């Protein structure tokens, strides 16, 4: 049995970076253009996110041109959405998917995975969340939404495009 959440742990969970993103979320709001919009909820607590992805062709394949969102939720889910959008906007889709996997591995690692700051940047601040099983879903909500959106954005494109 593991158990998260001592008085000390609180600071491990609520890293300064997380609280900063929570108070001043980056890239918030829903913007055009976009190829896919998804709505995800955390059924247990009701946190919700509506998320749009705009993908545009780049030199080496598709690029995540924009991630915009409207979200309600706790500090962890809000900060995670902010960190994610900042991290993924401008990255080739293939690379963004790798970042996604890295973040997923970190969250599901029960606190044993050492995060790679080069890949995750501000996302490393979420390392502490992995020790709070009940909060992992909060941190993952928008990442799951993004994954969902980006795959239908690619489909939409390839459906609509010439290639």
């Amino acid at each position: 049995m593991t158990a998260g959440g001592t008085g000390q742990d609180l600071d491990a969970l609520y890293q300064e970076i997380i609280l900063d993103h929570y108070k001043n979320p980056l890239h918030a709001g829903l913007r055009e253009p976009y190829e896919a919009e998804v709505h995800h909820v955390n059924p247990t607590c009701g946190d919700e996110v509506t998320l749009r992805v705009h993908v545009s062709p780049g030199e080496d394949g598709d690029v995540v041109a924009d991630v915009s969102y409207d979200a309600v939720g706790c500090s962890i889910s809000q900060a995670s959405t902010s960190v994610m959008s900042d991290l993924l906007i401008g990255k080739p889709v293939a690379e963004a998917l790798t970042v996604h996997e890295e973040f997923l591995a970190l969250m599901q690692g029960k606190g044993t995975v050492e995060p790679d700051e080069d890949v995750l940047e501000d996302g490393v601040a979420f390392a502490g969340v992995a020790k709070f099983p009940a909060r992992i879903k909060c941190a993952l909500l928008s990442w799951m939404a993004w994954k969902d959106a980006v795959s239908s954005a690619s489909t939409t494109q390839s459906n609509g495009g010439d290639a």
Partner: protein
Amino acid sequence: MDGLLPQLDVVRKDFPILERTLAGNRPLVYLDSANTSQKPQCVIDAMVDHLEHHNANVARAMHQLGAESSEAFEAARDTVAEFLGAPSRDEVIFTKNASEALNLLANTMAWAGDRQVGEGDEVLVTEMEHHSNIVPWQLLTQRTGATLRWFGLTDDGRLDLSDVDSLITERTKVVSLTWVSNMLGTVNDVAAIARRAHEVGAVVVVDAAQAAPQMPIDLASMPVEERPDALVFTGHKTVGPTGIGVLWGSRALLDALPPFLGGGEMIETVRMEGSTYAGIPHKFEAGTPPIVEAVGLGAALRYLTDLGMDAVAAHEHAITAYALEGLAGVPGVTVLGPQDAADRGGAIAFELAGVHPHDVAQVLDSRGVAVRAGHHCARPAHARFGVQSTTRMSSYLYTTPAEVDAFVEALEAARTYFGVAS
């Protein structure tokens, strides 16, 4: 403090988990009893004794262990009947939880029978129901072409009865409502609504998942016009185990419903071409029932009865009043539902300005205080009040005033942590 259970410290010793310490060596302050209650030693012991000495299948086993197990199982049914003041012990059906009990009713009303719900018929619920008393009726009405309607809520979290005459009509086939709200704490006037619903011949279903743990229920003493036709509760909230719930239904209703789950024990004769069914209660108990769970539930209800449900209710009332008082002293707190402990159950959902409920709960948890954050399976009621989620503290018979103090202090700590303290 007036109204507390006599010898509360002795009562607390009955609950082994209350000795638990959590991370950081914090003692457990369990304020999530509306979610699930803790279990006294006597319940655990009864289950262990059954498993170690009397385990056998029931009804179908004729040997000594089988007789012992059947007797223990059926004795639990008697205990439930007494606990509810049920007119007849055969009207007590064991289900897996309260949700299954509600679904049993809604699911069987889709099929041919005197109580069948179809096109043009209406089912009436309320906006303060737990999802388990909404979704089954949505499924029923969607699948049969009937219409789901609901009572709205007043600003202070009570049922809005102003449109009762347009809601309860000749088309109303079922009125299903909670006795005590698990979010707002509201205690509904079940008797008055039942009386109205019975005038139009509707079946009245009462969700007593939160009522059964907190207040004395005596069905037999209710005038029959005011008595629900069915009432459900769940074992794990009445200091019993998970895996067991109760559907009480009047014989008239239960006899009129077609079978729900088919299988062993619910039959009279099975031929490949068709089967006939047993009478109640067995008609609705397909398969091996929750035997050790019934034994545990029986012990649980005897424990509550020994404490006295009046005394449990008085305790809950006193603690709730004290908690409401404490919350009133915390800046930024808004309590949803009735603000006054009078006529109110023990669940208190609230907002803390500037801190999301998850984050409130997290800070509280870091201090050993266990509360629930989210929509508490009552999303429509949250939507009604324009909030996405709340923090909920819910006490029970083992809660002390000192625990309420720890809770209020922890709220202050949350305000400080998230920088909303002025």
